[in-house]
């Protein structure tokens, strides 16, 4: 399985993602420059965290038009696995590969700390090494993670099992206090209809080995590896539940 980590001007978690994949998980992984015209040869793409294009205009709004994104979109449409972390999630929203948008954190503060996430759907390629209701401890670091979508979209996401992670407390209870940014329904991560594209605000690459204080983030990568090794491929509208 060959992983590609896209590097935009202003990405700053690209090396962390590559480290987690190569060193912590022993994967074959390399960088993809934002000017690349093709993502051929890669089996999974990571859009890393950071501040692509200085977060100018809106987070992810300029990166979304980077040359590489055309091939990433095509890759996603064909069912390729795409994981957007933090700024990567924001880029996926701007690109329309995932629904909704990010608003400024309701606190108006940059939040940088560990949070707890509840696995809401363990049947996606990104969570199948987890069990439903598992609580993962993963850090966040963002200013615009306040997920917003209209009511119909939120309902559709929930009904179709596309809300994959929600902010919760250590016991796994989804509470107002556990919501670090004002996200609707405590949403921390969602996937597309087909289940091959996931966006999440927390940073699994920052906690993929116990030396870093938590190895919970590795569960996301391990799920994808397991999915790939089983020979499974996301099928069109397979339904997640």
């Amino acid at each position, binding site marked *: 399985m060959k992983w590609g980590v896209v590097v935009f001007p202003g990405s700053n978690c690209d090396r962390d993602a590559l480290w987690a994949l190569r060193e912590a998980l022993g994967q074959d992984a390399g960088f993809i420059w934002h000017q690349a015209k093709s993502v051929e040869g890669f089996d999974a793409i990571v859009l890393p965290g950071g501040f692509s294009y200085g977060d100018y*205009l*809106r987070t992810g*709004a300029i990166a979304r*038009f980077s040359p590489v994104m055309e091939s990433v979109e095509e890759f996603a449409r064909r069912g390729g696995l795409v994981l957007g972390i933090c700024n990567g999630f924001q880029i996926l*929203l*701007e690109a329309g590969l995932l*629904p*909704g*948008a990010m*608003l*400024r*954190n*309701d*606190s*108006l503060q940059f939040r940088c700390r560990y949070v707890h996430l509840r696995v809401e759907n363990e049947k996606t390629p990104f969570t199948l090494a987890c069990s439903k209701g598992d609580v993962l401890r993963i850090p966040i670091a963002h200013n615009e993670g*306040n997920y*917003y*979508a*209209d009511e119909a979209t939120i309902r559709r996401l929930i009904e179709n099992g596309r809300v994959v992670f929600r902010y919760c407390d250590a016991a796994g209870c989804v509470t107002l206090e556990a919501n670090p940014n*004002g996200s609707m329904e405590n949403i921390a991560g969602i996937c597309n209809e087909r289940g091959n594209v996931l966006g999440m605000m927390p940073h699994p690459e920052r906690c993929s080995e116990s030396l870093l204080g938590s190895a919970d983030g590795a569960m996301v990568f391990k799920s994808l590896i397991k999915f790939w090794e089983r020979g499974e491929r996301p099928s069109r509208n397979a339904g997640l539940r």
Partner: protein
Amino acid sequence: MFLACVRVMLKRSVLDPQGVTVMGALKSLGFDTVSDVRVGKYFQIAIDAPTPDEARPAVDEMCRKLLSNPVIEQYDFDIVAGGAGK
């Protein structure tokens, strides 16, 4: 040369935490009559076109494609004489 003056605002249905905070600051400065504040973005775009009307479609497309995010924002614009003529 014309100047497109584009305003992008969060939709009414979307809470604007920046606006709420600015309103709080205004009130604490004694501006008691303030009842709402919304913070938005303003763009001035110099654009070449024979007439303002002929500049409109391009400006509208800029707004839809890049300057605003239709999920959370709305926009409007005027086109006036001027721009960065040298």
